[in-house]
C-alpha cells in the first residue's frame, strides 16, 4: 500500500468517525420514557437508586463520591459480557450512561481504582 493511499485511507477513517458517531448515538437526557437510575460510587459501595426497570432506555447517572477514579459497568447475566460501560469517572464528577435494555437479568459493577471485579449488584429488567 503506497503511503498516499494509506494517508487517504486514514483521512477517510478519521472523517467517517463523525457520521458513525451520529448514527450510533442515542437520545439520552431528552428521552422522557428513559428510566433514570442514580448511581453513587464510593470506595466500598455502589448504590443504585433502583435495581429494576421496565425494558427500554435506561439512563444511569454515576456520581463518584470516592477518592479514586471509578468505572461503571452493566454486564449480562453471566457477569462477564459487557453490555455498556463508562470509564474514567474522576472523583467528584458525574457521568451518564444511556443504554437500551431488553428484559432479563443483568449485573452492575462499580470499579473504584479501575481494577478487579468491582462492587457488583443485580439489576432486573422486566
Amino acid at each position, binding site marked *: 500500500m503506497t503511503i498516499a493511499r494509506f494517508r487517504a485511507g486514514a483521512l477517510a477513517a478519521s472523517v467517517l468517525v463523525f457520521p458513525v458517531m451520529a448514527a450510533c448515538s442515542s*437520545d439520552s437526557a431528552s428521552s422522557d420514557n428513559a428510566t433514570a437510575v442514580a448511581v453513587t460510587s464510593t470506595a466500598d459501595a455502589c448504590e443504585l437508586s433502583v435495581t429494576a426497570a421496565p425494558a427500554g432506555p435506561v439512563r444511569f447517572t454515576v456520581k463518584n463520591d470516592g477518592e479514586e*477514579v471509578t468505572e461503571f459497568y452493566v454486564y449480562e447475566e453471566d457477569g462477564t459480557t459487557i453490555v455498556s460501560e463508562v*470509564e474514567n469517572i474522576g472523583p467528584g*464528577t458525574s457521568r451518564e450512561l444511556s443504554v437500551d435494555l431488553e428484559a432479563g437479568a443483568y449485573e452492575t459493577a462499580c470499579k473504584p481504582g479501575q481494577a478487579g471485579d468491582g462492587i457488583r449488584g443485580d439489576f432486573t429488567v422486566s
Partner: protein
Amino acid sequence: MFANFLIGLREGLEASLVVGILVAYLARTHRRDLLPKVWLGVGSAVAVSLAAGAALTFGPRGLSFKAQEMIGGTLSIVAVGFVTWMIFWMARTSRALRSELEGRMAVAVAAGGTSLVLLSALAVGREGLETALFVWAAAQATGSSTSPIVGAILGLALAVVLGVGVYKGALRLNLATFFRWTGAALVIVAGGVLAYGIHDLQEASILPGLNTIAFDVSDTIRPSSWYGTLLKGTVNFSPRTTVLEAIAWTCYVVPVLFLFWRAVRTPAPRPTSNPTHPTPDAVSV
C-alpha cells in the same frame, strides 16, 4: 484532586511524547518550517475533541459505548500505522544525513506535509474524545467543587511540560544516538497503542478474547497509582493484559524494532560516483 490530576497526566502524556519526539526530529533535520503543520494537527485534534465532547456531555444525544470503543480502537490502529511510517522515515533520513550531508541538509518531505498534520492529529486525537469527556465532566462539577477541573488541567499541563522535556533532552543527544533511541522509543510506544486499540475493539466485542488474560498485576501495579499512571501514559502498559494484546504487542515490537535498528545501522549508499546508486537525499512521503 490527585486522582483527576493523574488522569489528566496520563491522557496528556500519550500525545505529548509523540509530538515531542516529532518536533525534536524536525529540529534535528532542519525542517522547522514544517512545525506549523504539526501545530495545525494538534490544534484541530484538540478543538474537534473538545467540541465533540461538549456536544455529547451537554447535548441531547449520547454515544453508545460500543461506538466509542470502535472509534478509539480504530483511530489507535490508524495512529500505529502513521507512527510506524514516521519510525522508518526517521531511519531512512538518518542514513541520508550520515552520507556526508550531515548538519546542513534539510530533509525533503514531499507532498506538503499532509502526513505530518495527520500524524500529529492522530497522536492527540485518538484518545481525544475520551479525554474531552473526562474534562467536560470535571468542568460540569465546578458547581460543587473546582478540584476536579483544577486537577485535570494541572495533569494535562504537566504532560505538556514533560513533552517539552523530551524534546529538549532529545536535542542534546548526538545525531546517531538520537535516531536510534527516539526511534526505539516510538516503536515501544506504538506497540502499546496497538495493544490499547485491540483492547478497545475487544471491549466492543469486535475482537474476541476480552477475558482471556495473559497476565494481571493490577494488585501490584494499581492503575490509579502514580507509577501505574506513568506506565500507562508512556508505553500504554495495562496491568491486566489480554492474550490478544500481548500477542499483537510482541508481533509488532519485535520485528519492527529489528527492522528499524537494521535500517539505522545500514551504511549510507555512496553519493553520485556510482550512477546506479543515487544519493538518498529526499524522502517521499
